[in-house]
């Protein structure tokens, strides 16, 4: 892997939608931006574990935004600024959803609301609605077995026979039927999400 990626290279790697490129871009995103995000969270009442959680959500949100065309790299715009803003929103959302917040978290919420008057609720609604459209979230609404089946067939490219052996189906016909049902379920889940 290269030592350093430009913002454009990261976006291009993600848009290639290939496993290797996406993994490399993920590594670059982490190496180049995790300190900034950790610092943001740690100075806003969170700890390193919170920072790790926020970075995971940030990654999925960012991939979704790149692939859905909601994010486009503009001239003179820095990727770090964009990531910082999403992380801020995600952290705000996370501490708002907690039943008990620490005084530092409450201070961060106050600051955040003061910086963006009237916006927090609208922003949170936007993120919440968007989050429902994240492909991974839709996919995870399926049961574990259904996820494994689709993954084995479409991602690992295993044959129906191999899947039957791997996942314990009585025959490849049973796999075929289950795959059909699972795709139908997934299709229903997608339909529930607006904009897809």
């Amino acid at each position: 892997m290269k030592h350093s990626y430009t913002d454009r290279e990261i976006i291009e790697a993600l848009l290639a939608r290939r496993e290797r490129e996406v993994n490399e871009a993920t590594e670059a995103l982490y190496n180049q931006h995790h300190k900034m995000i950790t610092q943001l969270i740690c100075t806003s009442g969170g700890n390193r574990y919170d920072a790790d959680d926020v970075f995971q959500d940030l990654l999925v949100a960012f991939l979704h935004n790149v692939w859905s065309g909601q994010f486009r790299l503009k001239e003179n715009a820095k990727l770090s600024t964009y990531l910082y803003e999403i992380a801020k929103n995600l952290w705000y959302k996370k501490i708002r959803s907690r039943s008990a917040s620490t005084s530092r978290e409450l201070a961060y919420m106050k600051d955040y609301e003061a910086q963006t008057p009237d916006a927090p609720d609208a922003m949170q609604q936007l993120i919440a609605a968007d989050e429902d459209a994240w492909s991974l979230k839709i996919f995870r609404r399926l049961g574990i077995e259904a996820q494994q089946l689709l993954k084995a067939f479409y991602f690992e490219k295993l044959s129906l026979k191999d899947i039957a052996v791997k996942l314990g189906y009585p025959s490849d016909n049973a796999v075929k039927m289950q795959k059909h049902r699972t795709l139908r379920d997934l299709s229903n889940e997608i339909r529930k999400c607006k904009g897809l």
Partner: protein
Amino acid sequence: MKRPTDREEEQAWIERYALGKMPPEEMRFFENELVNDPDLTHKMNEIKTLHRVMQEAFLQEQALETLRKLQSRSRIKRRSVTMVRYIGFAAAACVAFMAYLSFSMPRFPDSENDFTVVRSTNKTTMPPAQRQVFDQFFEGQAHIVEGQYVMAVKNFETVLESNDLRPYFKEAAQWHLIVAYLKSGDLSRAEILYKRFDNCLECEYHVSTLNRWKIWWQINVQKLTS
């Protein structure tokens, strides 16, 4: 060429087209059907969306997996750095403590507060033998401070020759003699005398544990190096 009637078969058929896995002749047939059947177009778009969502979900999952590995590696690295720092600090503290034990002079409680016992309240009535013991003791202390340890040994040995020493004063003289022996290089005598105070429960002259350690450490270090 016939279009599949079974739902499963139809789904597989559309998928083959969407994934570009159809032979040219079948593809032409499929495209012809697409023109005539808007429902088929809808189904195909649905399958394309399904595939897009699945591909994105798989890639997002892979990316998350990669991220978690990086985060775990980073946590391990952070822990190792912290541990190395702690170990380094502990090692430095050990070295500093050993240096302190090796080079600092043992300190004993002041003996001046028993003036009235050793020395008569009236100097003129103090017996000469008692005065000599008293003088030898403080002279010995002065010799230790000045680094004249052989002289100090003589002073404290003279003190201990006296038969009617108070236990407290006798123990004080013995402790000082240990240091004088140690510093003058007479390790075996220092050690023998030191061992008398090992686990001494009835001792009256209390030397702190730290100062006992200093003496014990210095005896052993000198034994090792000599």
